[in-house]
């Protein structure tokens, strides 16, 4: 190149040759990487947003809870307030205070272990219970006698039919809950536990297995449904029978 025709003459002085070299360092977008790193650190510190919302889980079928009290006349159980001696016929028909203030309570726990379990959900069954026809005294016709049984469905009796549970299964990571039942008696303030099967079915009625006291409740997080089934069974129950627990058992 013509521009490079230069002479360097010898002299006793040091010579400096200045060659301009343009150095540009590209730090472009490095900030983006830092921002990403920053975001990951923040996430690590304060966590990702979680979905703590509860959804309405519906039973796949109309479900019926049937509570059987110990019969006063024999060793069997009976679905009646009157035959079990809990309340007189008049008390049930006239709905006296003790009867009105009594209620059934369904509890859902995370475990069958009674010492370690935690109660996550509770259903108080309302007063819209099933009835049976009864002939009234003094030729008053046919009356409706309440029985300890509840038919739940979305139209006629929806209260207690739905469970409101986390829609994100990872929040608690509980594969299933365990359902127990109690009756709170307004006439004496005591409560009665129920078993899933008659005590007489057990070979050791004085020492019942844990599956006698609870049923499994499984949630379908996709369809937002739940099912109640006996422990170890895969069949959803349409009628959930409960039997009054007697201790010591009358055999």
């Amino acid at each position, binding site marked *: 190149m013509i521009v490079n025709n230069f002479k360097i003459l010898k002299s*006793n002085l040091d010579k400096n*040759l200045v060659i301009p070299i343009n*150095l540009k360092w590209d730090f472009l977008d490095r900030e983006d990487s*830092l921002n990403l790193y*920053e975001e990951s650190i*923040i996430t690590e510190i304060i966590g990702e947003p979680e979905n703590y919302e509860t959804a*309405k889980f519906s039973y796949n*079928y*109309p479900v019926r809870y049937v509570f059987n009290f110990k019969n006063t006349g024999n060793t069997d159980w009976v679905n009646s307030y009157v035959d079990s001696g809990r309340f007189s016929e008049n008390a049930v028909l006239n709905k006296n205070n003790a009867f009105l203030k009594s209620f059934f309570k369904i509890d859902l726990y995370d475990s069958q272990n009674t010492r370690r379990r935690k109660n996550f959900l509770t259903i108080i069954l309302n007063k819209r219970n099933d009835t049976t026809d009864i002939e009234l005294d003094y030729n008053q016709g046919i009356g409706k006698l309440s029985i300890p049984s509840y038919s739940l469905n*979305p139209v006629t009796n929806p209260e207690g039919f739905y469970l409101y549970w986390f829609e994100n299964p990872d929040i608690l990571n509980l594969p299933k809950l365990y359902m127990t039942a109690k009756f709170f008696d307004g006439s004496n303030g005591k409560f009665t536990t129920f078993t899933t099967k008659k005590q007489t079915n057990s070979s050791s009625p004085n020492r019942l297995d844990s599956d006698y006291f609870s049923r499994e409740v499984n949630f379908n997080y996709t369809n937002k449904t739940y099912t109640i089934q006996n422990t170890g069974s895969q069949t959803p129950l349409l009628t959930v029978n409960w039997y009054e627990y007697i201790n010591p058992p009358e055999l």
Partner: protein
Amino acid sequence: MNNNVQILKGSARYAAAPDIDNRLSVTLDSTQKELTEYERNLGIDLAVRFDTERQKSTTFNFTCKFTLLFENVYSGLTQPITNPYAPINRNLYYITPEAYRILQSNSLDPSFEIAWAGLPQYHEFDFIRTDYNVSGYTVSANGETPHVNFNTLQASYYNWLFYLSYPFENDYTKNLQILLDDGSTFDWTVGNGIPFTVNNTTINGKAVIEITCPFNHNLSVGDSVQLTISCNSLNIFDVYTIGDSYANNENRVFTIYNLGYSDCGNFYDGAIGLLKKVAIKDNPIESVSKYYVRRHKIISQYTDSELTRTGFENNPFRNVTKFETSALTPNLTPRISVKEGSQSYNLSFKNDFDINNLLDNLNRPVTEFYTTVVNRGYFGFFNKPITNDIGLKQGWEFNLGPVLNPWWNDDNTTCLTNVGTNYYERTSPGGTNLRFYYNLPYEIGDSLDGDICEWNNMTQTETVLSEYYHKLTFNQKVFRTSLIGTENPNTEGYYYKPHYKFQIRVFSDYVEQSDENNPQNFPIINLPNYAYYSNYNLDFRWRDIYSYGFIDNNGRGVDRPFLNNKHYVHENFTFRLIPEGSNVNTINTTQVNDPLTDDCE
């Protein structure tokens, strides 16, 4: 420095030494070190974190409230007339039951039953059926199979099905029809524009050409319009005025200043043509509007919807019920019948929806979702198939009353939806076999039509011109509403609007423009892939999407609650079942419409 370098010419070194080129190597050492920033501080502000997560989230939860407005107006007779199908004949809201009691009592045979005139009860139209224990109808009577074995879990799915949908494509080829004043019809394809009729008149002594459209023309004074009717090759005209001397005609009528156009002979009174809006007169090719039917894609199963009664809200009208005394029923059984109800409903969906990667009908990020309501009619009063097992009809707002439009005639198969039907059979006491049809549900991915819309590339605006409607008609083989003569192929029915909008984001009020030739003047930053490139202006055009929570000075924007890493979108809708004869859309009215026949039905 030891830089004592001697540079000798080659021939100076020794005798006969040649001169050669010398090179001096200069080594360049460059050592650089970045300044170490030991600390990087960041304040974790709750509001900033909330906004960051909100803008990042693409998950939506949709809920809405429906107010159901309905007037029960169409009475009829259960078929066949003698020995009619008892489950329906015995469960109507009777009209003049005394007359029918006398007619039936005149028979010598006590088991003989005639059809009693009445209205289908409100249960046939309600969102959630509550007639779960009607003997013979929904529960078994005397061991016989009921009309429908009522399943309480299906109570909210018997009459109506609810879906979530979004517009995903445009149909420019939909064939439409309007009813003209003289009773004739005009057919056109939606992509060709908006039909109109011509009327030559004067305004303040000035000659104008008045153009009347069947639905919203979306024009303003100063806009230009391209007509299929031309004058000396001129087919683009300026809008002179909007509306006429009648009420509510601003969106349907406009005028063109008549600069002798009528002398061409094409703009005669009653002339019919098609028009398209032109946003920029100098650039008619690019700025002419497109017209199409928006199509929706279903993205939820009908079982994903969850319908509940509102706890404390009813519509302004009352429940209409009456006690049918035993003597005034065909089977001598007293009951309470319901004509109209006032319950409102909440609708939610069991699952959340991720909008990531969803594009709308204009290939933009989706900004609108819709609750889509489609009749099911499982109890079989409606939806007798016309052809291809389809009974549900569709049309647009201009196809509604006040005059029964031939568009809805059974002969017109273009008015049919794509909703298939199925049926079950029951036998009347006289042995007549009756088919009860009901609509099949949509599945995820199915599509259906929507509103008629206009899109303009220059203004980057989509405008709904006419809303989409469905029409229910009674199955005359089961419940005859046209009582005189032969079966009417164009029976009266109820109209309803299927699509109800959830706005999740909005486009900006302004149009962004780029200048590719002069990027230094207007650099293209964050150019969205849905931007429109104008060959005429050599620039891109688009509207920005406002961020969540931002509302501009004009009130444009959405600010939905954000919680649990999702956006909660709630809207209130009014669902109207409109009977034939609504005159709310009547043009050329000079007074407020008669409230007895307005859209409140």
